[in-house]
Structures are given as structure tokens and as C-alpha cells.
């Protein structure tokens, strides 16, 4: 009984622990295994060395995909954080229509990309959307044709992704802002700290854990960005906007090349590991003040 009570916290975590162990780490191990086989349409389990990885690294398309991931990931995370934080702070200023605005900022998350992709495609298409519209107003030289320029197309993906996710980041930050003790903010006000600094030096550091949440959410969205690309550019022009996730999907499901897909998944996981683990370490390392 006493034992039971002392171990309640651990018992509460136990199911999650088991689930994560099997359904995340078990599956990663499975993927690692498959990446060493010649699996095609369906998994096979005879080991066959690192051939899949050699092929992967030889593929120019994979190069493009990884490069895109860096560009897209960095821009998407940074811009979404900035916009999300800004909107949260602005909304926190006792804004009249807060409820309405909040919902407007959030709703992009609600819509399935299957079709917002189409809407974005039109908006960004130079011949149909914004460019055409602005030219229609008489600004003949106005150009906004990123969608069709292979070297710029990835940025349109950033725009659409930011559009979709920044509202949610705003919500996360807003929740964080509202958990900060108001007395502390008052103290800062009296201390003569300008509002800007109150946020930057006092409130935001207090919300550090919320930043971790936002980072994980955004990094996860960036790395798994899939529907978005499929809907907006389908990887095009050419494969200029391919991302590892779309590459992997194409390999696994369009091309029946599971081994290759598994290899690309493993590389993705390693990249994530390299980026996320140091961050996690710095956030979670036991601190003296905890």
C-alpha cells in the first residue's frame, strides 16, 4: 500500500513509458532494420548492408530535400515563433476584440491542407493570384512569382506553413503569458522598465518552458511537413521543394522502395537527433535553482 502510494507518479507514467518504448523506439529499431534490407513493396527482413544509404546519398533529389529542410526548417521555426510571440503579446494588451482576433489567427490550423493548399496555390500563382491582382490595380511591374521559380519556391512553402502554424504558436504563448504572476509585472512597471523590456527580460524568460513546447511543435511540423508540400507544389517545380518527408513518402508508397524510404527516415531521425538533443539537454539539465 505504502509502496503503491510512493510509486503513484511512476505508475502513472508507466503506460506511456511502455507505449513509447514499443511504438516509438521499437518502430525506430524496425525502421533501422528495414533500412539495411532490400525491401521493396513490402518489408523484407534479410539484411543486405548499407546499400540503401549509398543510394540515398548518391541521389541528387535527396540532396535537394535535405537542403530544403534546413532552409524551410530554420525560416519556418524562427518566423512562426516571432509572429506567434508578437501576436500573443499584442493580444495580451487588453485588446477589445481579442476573442475574434484569436480565432482568426488560429483558424488556419483548423483547415485541412488538402484544400487550403489549392487556395494558396491560386493566391501565390502569378497568373491568378496576388501578382495578377496587384498588376490589375495598375502596378504593371509588380512581381510575386516565387511559386514558379525553383530557387524561390521553397519560400512559398514557408509562407503557407507560417500562415498555418503561427496562430497555434500564438495560442501557446498566450497561455504562457497568462500564467505569469501579475505582481512581478507590476514590480517591473514600477521599476520603470519599458513594456518592451518587461516582455523581453522578465516575462519571456519566465516562459522558457513554453518556448520549448513551441520549438518542439514547430520543429515537428517542419520535419514532418508533408501535406503542405503535396498540396501546394507537390514538390515542384521539378523537385525543387521536395523535403525529406515527401521524399520518404514517395519512396515508400509511390515507388514501392521501402528500403530506401527507411534509410531516408533514419537519416531524418539522425538530423533531428543532432538538432533536438542539444536543445533538450540545455533545457532539461538539472539546474541549481530547481
Amino acid at each position, binding site marked *: 500500500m505504502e509502496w503503491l502510494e510512493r510509486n503513484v507518479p511512476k505508475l502513472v507514467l508507466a503506460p506511456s513509458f511502455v507505449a513509447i518504448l514499443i511504438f516509438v523506439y521499437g518502430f525506430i529499431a524496425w525502421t533501422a532494420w528495414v533500412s539495411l534490407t532490400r525491401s521493396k513493396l*513490402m518489408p523484407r527482413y534479410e539484411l543486405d548492408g548499407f546499400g540503401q544509404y549509398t543510394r540515398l546519398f548518391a541521389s541528387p533529389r535527396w540532396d535537394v530535400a535535405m537542403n530544403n529542410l534546413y532552409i524551410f526548417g530554420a525560416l519556418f521555426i524562427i518566423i512562426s515563433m516571432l509572429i506567434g510571440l508578437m501576436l500573443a503579446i499584442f493580444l495580451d494588451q487588453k485588446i477589445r476584440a481579442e476573442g475574434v482576433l484569436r480565432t482568426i489567427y488560429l483558424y488556419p490550423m483548423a483547415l485541412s491542407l488538402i484544400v487550403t493548399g489549392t487556395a494558396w496555390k491560386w493566391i501565390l500563382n502569378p497568373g491568378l493570384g496576388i501578382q495578377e491582382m496587384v498588376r490589375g490595380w495598375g502596378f504593371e511591374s509588380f512581381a510575386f512569382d516565387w511559386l514558379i521559380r525553383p530557387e524561390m519556391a521553397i519560400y512559398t512553402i514557408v509562407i503557407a506553413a507560417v500562415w498555418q502554424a503561427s496562430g497555434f504558436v500564438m495560442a501557446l504563448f498566450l497561455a504562457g503569458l497568462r500564467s505569469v504572476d501579475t505582481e512581478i509585472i507590476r514590480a517591473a512597471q514600477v521599476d520603470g522598465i519599458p513594456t518592451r523590456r518587461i516582455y523581453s527580460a522578465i516575462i519571456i524568460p519566465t516562459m522558457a518552458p513554453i518556448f520549448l513546447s513551441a520549438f518542439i511543435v514547430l520543429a515537428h511540423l517542419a520535419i514532418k511537413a508533408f501535406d503542405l508540400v*503535396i498540396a501546394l507544389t507537390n514538390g515542384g517545380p521539378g523537385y525543387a521543394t521536395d523535403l525529406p518527408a515527401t521524399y520518404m513518402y514517395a519512396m515508400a508508397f509511390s515507388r514501392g522502395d521501402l528500403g530506401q524510404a527507411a534509410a531516408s527516415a533514419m537519416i531524418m531521425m539522425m538530423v533531428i537527433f543532432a538538432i533536438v538533443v542539444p536543445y533538450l539537454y540545455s533545457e532539461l539539465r538539472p539546474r541549481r535553482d530547481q
Partner: protein
Amino acid sequence: EPTAEVLHWWTSGGEAKSVAVLQDQFKAEGGTWTDMPVAGGGGDAAMTALRARVLAGNAPTAVQLKGPAIQEWYEETGLADIGSVAEENGWADVLPAQLAEHMKCDGQWCAAPVNVHRVNWIWGNKQILDEHGITQPTTWEEFNAAAEKLKEAGVTPLAHGGQNWQDATIFETVVLGQGADFYQKALVDLDPEALKSDTMKGVFDELRTLRGYVDDNFSGRDWNLATAMVMNGEAAFQIMGDWAKGEFLAAGKQPGVDFVCWPTPGNGFLYNVDSFAFFNVEGEDKQQGQKLLAKLIMGPDFQKTFNLNKGSIPARTDVALDEFDDCAKQSNQDMSADAEDGSLLPSYAHGMALRGAQAGAITDVVTNFFNSDMSSEDAVQQLADAVAASQM
């Protein structure tokens, strides 16, 4: 009582109505039909679902599968043998031999074809063409000349959507323009010689030229929006399979009056055959369902109604085409003719010629070429390399 659970990706509008015909017939024969539609990505989503179903141990009774994927699946999991149905109904007699090959696994019938799409069509806006006095081009040079003319006149010559399968479609029609043999060697047999040949370089050169006939905003455009451009007179041509016809017809346009359909330059017929494959399933009623389904699919009735709806032509050669439009009739004639002289060829762009990995490798190179300023030499080299790598 026969039952069937049918996994397919014909979901919207005309497609769905077409399947519904089959369903009705199936029900009329006393069967129970469970529909499992999964659209998206040209069947990718359905394939994803299929794999999950197979791994979970409950494969659907019938799956819309086509091309070499049928044989691939057969190798992985085995497929049901529907030879008895085929024998009984004399499929061998009514199917062009080449199509019939696609329906066999290890010499056994394991799939039933529904239709034949012709991929290598040029669709033209009749009014524009008449205005500029353009007639059907029979070579790519002629096509180029016509396009130049149009371009000079300020008309976009070619409506195109920059999605990789559309790029691949144009590519394969150009390859076909170099002769059926070359097509066979390059895109069916994957002969490295052919892939690296000067002819192939010529193909890429032509592709580069065609790229010049496309408007600036083609990237990511859906094929039907490209069709709409032709329809609305914003562009003169589109190279697209015969499903484009559906768009014209839906907008109330008449073949030969508002728009024309010509085969792409060169001699040949690229086909895209939809078919159903049958997985190994447990249970008498399901196996019965498979047989019934196979029979119905190949039934002349169904073949006719279905293809009227879908814009394609029946896979059976013995179906009367009176009710079909002129484009379909021409398609049918060409199919028979080309079957004779060996230029009836599987479309690589639509997964009829190659397995996924190889087709994908080629498409990667093609689409990258089309959307960059890569030289034809590089493209040929990359093509050969990619194909080689994909065969590992």
C-alpha cells in the same frame, strides 16, 4: 453469396458513377458490395492503405491495380488465380495480347482490365488553330513550327501543368515521337545504350524547346486548369491523356467543333489500362465475389457503360463504339492498328511500363530537367545513372 470489398481511387464525378455501374451489376447478381474508395496522389494513398491492410492481415477482395505493380504484388504476397473466369469468358480472344500480358502473373490470370486510356493526345482549341491555319502536326518539328507561329501571334502555344507526372507525360510522348522501338528500348527495357543515346539527348532538346512554349505560370498547375486554358482560348494545345476530354465535354464543348484531338507526333499508342487485381482471401463468399467481379468487369455491358462515362475506351476489342465520340473512336482504331505493328506501348508516366522505383527515378530527372536549365547532356547522364541506381 458473393461479397466483395473493393479498394479503388475512382471517387469523384464521372469516375464514381462509372464504378457505381459495376456495383449495381454486382448487386443485381446477388452480391454484397463494400466500397472502399481512397483517392489521392494518383493512387498512392490507396496503395498506402492497401499495404496497411495486407500487413494487418485483411486484404481487400479486389484492388484497383495496374501495370507492373500487379506482378510486383504477386511476388510479394501472391494474388488469387482467376483463370477459370478468364477461360470461361474467353478473355484471351477479346483482349489485345499486349494488354492481356499485364493481367497475368506467372502465366496465370490475376487481374481484370477495365478500360484503356490513351495518353498521347494533343488537345487543341479549334478556333485558335483555324485562325492561324494550323493543321495536325505529324512530327515534333511541325509541332515546333506551329508553336512558333502561335507564339509570335501572342498565343501561348502549350498549356501545361508543372506537376511531375505531367512533365513525364510530355516526355514520354516526345520519346514516342522518336519511334516505337526507341520508346520500347528506352522506357520499357531501360536499355542503357538507349538512355544515353543521342536520340535521348534529342528528346531532351525537344523538351527544352517545348518548355519555351509554356506560359510562365505553369508550375504546380492542375491538369484540368491547363485544359481550361485551351478551352478558354488562353492556349492552343495541351498534351494530355484522354481524360482531358471529360473537361471539355463537361463544359459543353463539342469535339471537332470547339476542340480537336490529335495523337501526338510520331506513330504509336501509349496506353494506360486500369484494372482490378484480386488478393488471396479466405472465405467462400469472398472468393466467389472475386470471380463474379472479374466476370462483370470484363462483361461487354460494363465495359461500354463504364468507358462512356470515363472517356476512355473498352479494353475488350469487341464492344460496339457507336455511342462513343470521335476521339474515342479514333483511339480504338489506332489501338488495333498499333497493336499490329508493335507500336502499342505501355505509358511509363502512368505506371504501365515500369516498376515504381525505376519510373520514379526517370521522372525525377525529367521533372528536374524541365524545371531548371540543365543541359541535355547532363540530363542524359543523370537519367542513365538514376535508372542504374534504382535497379540495385
